[in-house]
């Protein structure tokens, strides 16, 4: 599956032109958290049921698969998807009802998919502004995590990508 990236998204949904193949492509790695979400979406998409929900799940998984395997590694530092503080350095894309968050390292040619999460179904599931502010207070926490990861994946001068 990885050798042949998919180009198709949801039925009838345009997914854009195939980006040029880079001679030094990014490696895509999933965290255990995003892996669990990815696998759960896959399991739903291959369900034997012919219900509308299954068809939607199939289309949604194709969108995510396309984003993770093709769109994001083609340009992982695309400014259109950049997050601000406290998550500056991370990126986030909306695909259907799903949000994908990742970090990348240009020199290490690595993309780490942090999370794959469904958007809240209703306003009742959304946190209010006070909660947002309390999250913002934790700004240093996220920032340090991203900077630490960037430092760890910086290749040594004589390192080569396998």
């Amino acid at each position, binding site marked *: 599956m990885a050798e042949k990236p998919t180009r198709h998204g949801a039925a009838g949904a345009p997914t854009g032109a195939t980006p040029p193949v880079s001679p030094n492509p990014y490696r895509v790695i999933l965290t255990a*958290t995003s892996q669990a*979400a990815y696998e759960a979406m896959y399991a739903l998409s291959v369900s034997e049921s012919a219900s509308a929900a299954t068809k939607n799940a199939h289309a949604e998984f194709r969108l995510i698969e396309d984003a993770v395997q093709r769109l994001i590694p083609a340009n992982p530092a695309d400014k259109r998807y950049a997050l601000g503080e406290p998550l500056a350095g991370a990126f986030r894309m909306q695909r259907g009802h799903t*949000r994908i968050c990742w970090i990348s390292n240009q020199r290490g040619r690595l993309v780490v998919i942090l999370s794959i999460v469904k958007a*809240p179904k209703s306003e009742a599931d959304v946190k209010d502004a006070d909660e947002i502010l309390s999250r913002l207070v934790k700004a240093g926490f*996220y920032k340090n995590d991203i900077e630490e990861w960037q430092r760890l994946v910086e290749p040594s001068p004589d390192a080569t990508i396998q």
Partner: protein
Amino acid sequence: MPMVEDFPTIDPSVRHIGVSKLRGLNADKLRETEDTFVIQDNDKPLAVLLTYDKFLAMQEKIRSVVNVVDLLRNPAEVAAIESAFADVAAGRLKPIETISEELKKGRG
């Protein structure tokens, strides 16, 4: 202690000009200037003229902030991000090729 917002700020790159001065802004001058112009008529601000790059930078900044607020409003996504950083720190990472291969095998 006063907040930063309590101090008046002056941005010397912002220039207030009358509408009539617009005629003097040709392509060469616009290319050279980094200034932002507040176009006024009888001291009443009517429009703002800024470089294309500045506009794009502002647009990116706004988009990045809106994107963060949208993320922070979703408790499930915040929890996932925190869990993901713990995964990164603990080395709980797997290449997409391996995951795809495992899914394919599991299905077969």
